[in-house]
């Protein structure tokens, strides 16, 4: 289980996220909507533990342990994995090396790496420097390939469908479902997901039951993600924000 309580986060001394509360039970996938600058990526980066994102109040618990002040790699080894929206190019580090590192295998089994590459349609990319010259879709598939090797219990996905053409989006969806155990009976499903999406295309593939709209650095409302997406498509985020503001207690 992931439990975020009263979380506030500052970047460069400026508070970006305020009082966020969110709980993801084992086997659940949740979706984050929100306009640009709402704090969605900041929330994911904070959960992953990037030091630039300073927790000023509140806590993050994962699998019953307070991870608020753990390092990125400690969280990764506990079972948190992230697909980045714009991951950096690391020259000289081959994609194969990254997958091998994710497998945490002493043998760095080539057969398993090749199998994952085939699954992600990236066989020709294993010997290339990670993310170097990759298209948008190739980056997303590479991120998911690494996560499939990493096998995280909590997967954080930052706009997994952005820059992906309609043909490849189905493959992205399949890879995500592998990660999130969609084909596993609900009672046996343990993997959790938290997905940022703008287009909502990915909702056609994943089994998400809970959605949030973030605005102004906090969660404005919670509900069924499909209904939320329909509302956002129909009325835009302005309506969401107005609705949220209307529900805020009046200040003195």
């Amino acid at each position, binding site marked *: 289980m992931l439990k975020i309580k009263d979380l506030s986060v500052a970047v460069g001394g400026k508070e970006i996220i305020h009082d966020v509360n969110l709980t993801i039970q084992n086997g659940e996938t949740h979706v984050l909507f929100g306009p640009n600058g709402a704090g969605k990526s900041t929330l994911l980066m904070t959960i992953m533990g990037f030091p630039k994102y300073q927790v000023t109040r509140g806590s993050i618990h994962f699998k019953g342990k307070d991870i608020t002040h753990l390092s990125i790699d400690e969280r990764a080894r506990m079972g948190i994995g992230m697909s980045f929206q714009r991951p950096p190019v*690391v020259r000289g580090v081959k994609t194969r*090396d990254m997958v091998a590192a994710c497998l945490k295998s002493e043998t760095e089994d080539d057969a398993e790496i090749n199998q994952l590459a085939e699954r992600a349609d990236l066989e020709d990319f294993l010997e290339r420097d990670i993310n170097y010259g990759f298209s948008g879709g190739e980056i997303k598939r590479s991120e998911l390939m690494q996560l499939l090797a990493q096998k995280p219990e909590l997967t954080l996905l930052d706009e997994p469908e952005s820059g992906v053409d309609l043909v490849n989006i189905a493959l992205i969806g399949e890879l995500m479902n592998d990660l999130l155990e969609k084909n596993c009976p609900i009672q046996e499903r343990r993997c959790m997901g938290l997905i940022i999406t703008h287009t909502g295309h990915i909702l056609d593939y994943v089994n998400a039951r809970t959605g949030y709209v973030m605005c102004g650095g906090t969660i404005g409302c919670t509900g069924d993600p499909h209904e939320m997406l329909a509302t956002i498509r129909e009325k835009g985020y302005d309506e969401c924000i107005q609705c949220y503001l209307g529900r805020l207690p009046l200040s003195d």
Partner: protein
Amino acid sequence: MTETGTSPADRDKARAAAAKKAALGEDIDLSRYDASSDELPYQADPSKLPSQAKEQMLTAGVMLDDPSQRSGTYIQMDNTPVHSSVSQDGVEVMPVGQAMAKYDWMADYWWRAVPVDQDKYTANVELNQYSGYFIRALPGQKTLFPVQACLYLAKDKLMQNVHNIIIAEAGSELHIITGCTTATADEPGLHLGVSEFYIKKGARVTFTMIHAWSPATAVRPRSAVVIEDGGLFLSNYLLMKPVKSLQMNPLARCTGEGATARFNSVLVTGAGSSLDVGSRVILDGKGSRTEIVSRAITTGGSIVARGYIEGNAPDCKGHLECRGLILGDKGVIQAIPELKGTLAGIDLSHEAAVGKIAEEEVEYLMARGLTHDQATAAIVRGFLRVDIEGLPPILAGSSSGPWMPAKKK
């Protein structure tokens, strides 16, 4: 001609240049070093050399216990050639003195690529006792395994003078690994090495030089290459152990049509080291090509990484890449890429970058479960990853110098 093979005119030039400071690098006081050393006995079986020397040579890529993967071997200790042998037809490996006695045409190659009066170091190699290797691939002959050569500095305060001649005759293929190392860890030593390469029509030469000196050694190699029509010269240079002072700036002249020169350099240094290392290529042949790639890492010492390409012929093409990485708070890297074109229709380019490891990249790898140190090591190894051909297994795929973080197990 003198008995050394040098023409009287060149000898005079050397005398005139005996005190001429080099254009680059710290000036070294030659009077602090002793030019003479004892004559050492010839060793027909190099595996019988002292084990400490063999271990030291192995760090520089020279394998003496199992020469089955080598087509020839040359060992010079101080100023004495102690072994030379070949194990493949079509290749000649011998001390330059022997080659002088054997071939009267040696004068055609002696000080013809490197000017004898380039500076006081070249002049000194001419004026004082010297030896060096002669390696030649006969026309059309292709070596399967590399020839290995070791220049070993054993005596304290010695000035080791070396003059090498390498000839790849037309259509031949030659691979050479030269390891330079020293037995003296703390005492000063000076290595002056002149190397002249002649790559004939359609010949291909891979030259890998590994320097494993000590923090007290000063080094001044002086190399030049002449590449004829369709010839290829590929140089790989690795320096991954401390050295006090190193300055070199080898020059390749692509004189022939379609000639190609490539230089890869990997420099890793720490506090107390001063490196000034470059590569120069002059493209005089129509359609000639070059690529210069340099990777420099410092954890405290200073590195000047130079590159120079000059295009003087139609359709010539060159690219220069200097990248430097500063690890820690100290250390200086200065990248100096230079391009010169003298006519239209040439294509020369360069890229240079100096910086520290991007924290964004480290954190990206950490998000996959690597610790900060493991992520840093992976990025450094990746930075140094230059595709180098012909390396022995002990060095191939390894960039674990004394300053490098350990590879993730």
